[in-house]
């Protein structure tokens, strides 16, 4: 497969508009994974959030992969494509020839040929990762990897925005619970 560029401004428009249809982070992340799978004609896509306490990756959204694969076991950030957590994207063009995976046999059993992992950065810190899984060996272009980084940065922004929104809503519910006189519309 040649390193054809597949991500362009039209795809960015579609993805950002779809994400903007909701104020819910899970729906935004689901739409991003769905659209990337459809547009890039790949097997699946997963967005992880990093748990810094346990150095584990928690699944925020996933599309195209089997439930068994997604729930195969705890994913440790220092064993599963650890390079991503230094803040840089990492490409595994062929999963049969890599020592970067924590569960290499599960990946092959799932029918995954290649993985692209990009960090989700926010304010210079890695807060998660977005991974794209191809059925076969994948020679992704540098420009597409760079475009995926931009999409991942936007997920980082959305995560922060929805966290603030959630905090505001919690305050509102708490105030509403005290007395109707404080009810906001």
């Amino acid at each position, binding site marked *: 497969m040649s390193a054809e560029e597949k991500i362009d401004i039209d795809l960015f428009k579609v993805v950002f508009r779809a994400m903007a249809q909701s104020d819910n982070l899970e729906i935004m992340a689901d739409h991003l994974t*769905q659209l990337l799978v459809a547009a890039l004609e790949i097997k699946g896509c997963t967005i992880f959030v990093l748990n810094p306490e346990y150095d584990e990756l928690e699944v925020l959204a996933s599309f195209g992969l089997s439930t068994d694969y997604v729930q195969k076991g705890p994913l440790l950030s220092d064993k599963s494509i650890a390079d991503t957590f230094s803040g840089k994207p990492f490409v595994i063009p062929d999963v049969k020839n890599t020592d970067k995976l924590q569960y290499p046999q599960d990946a092959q059993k799932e029918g995954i040929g290649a993985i692209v992992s990009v960090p989700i950065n926010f304010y210079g810190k890695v807060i998660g990762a977005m991974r794209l899984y191809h059925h076969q060996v994948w020679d992704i272009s540098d420009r597409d990897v760079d475009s995926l980084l931009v999409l991942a940065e936007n997920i980082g922004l959305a995560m922060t925005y929805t966290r603030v929104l959630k905090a505001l809503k919690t305050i509102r519910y708490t105030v509403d619970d005290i007395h109707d006189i404080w009810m906001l519309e």
Partner: protein
Amino acid sequence: MAIQKILVAYNFTHLDQKAIEFVTSTFARLDGIEITIFHAYTPVPEIETQASMVTGKLKSSLSYLSQQVMQRENEFKEITEKLAKNDLANAQIHTIFRPRKKDIASEIINLNRETKFDVIVLNRKAARVTRFFSGSVSHKILMTLKETTVCVVS
């Protein structure tokens, strides 16, 4: 004896299976039980119809996404039909598989407004940081609903 209405939120995970096992072991032998198994899925995003080549290509790929949703619906039907025949043969089983517009907690709360349930069975995954960003379903339901028993399986 009044019918006891039970809602089970289902999302195809191992914990959901645990929640079903809890419902089976607790309610399966009782009479007058009506169980609703509920799944809300994220619908395929709406794409603007423009003459752009990429959008056109993407629209055709979106049919693949719709197929995946249909596949999930079939999987959901298979699971619930199997339950109705075996473990929960004594109870009336209803299924709801519908697109979500909001967060899962709000979908469950709205469904409870439509059909007043006596018991709601949820599960609680261990993902702590995800909950920090997207909110806790069980917490929101417990804070909002009144006069409903909520069981959380973890």
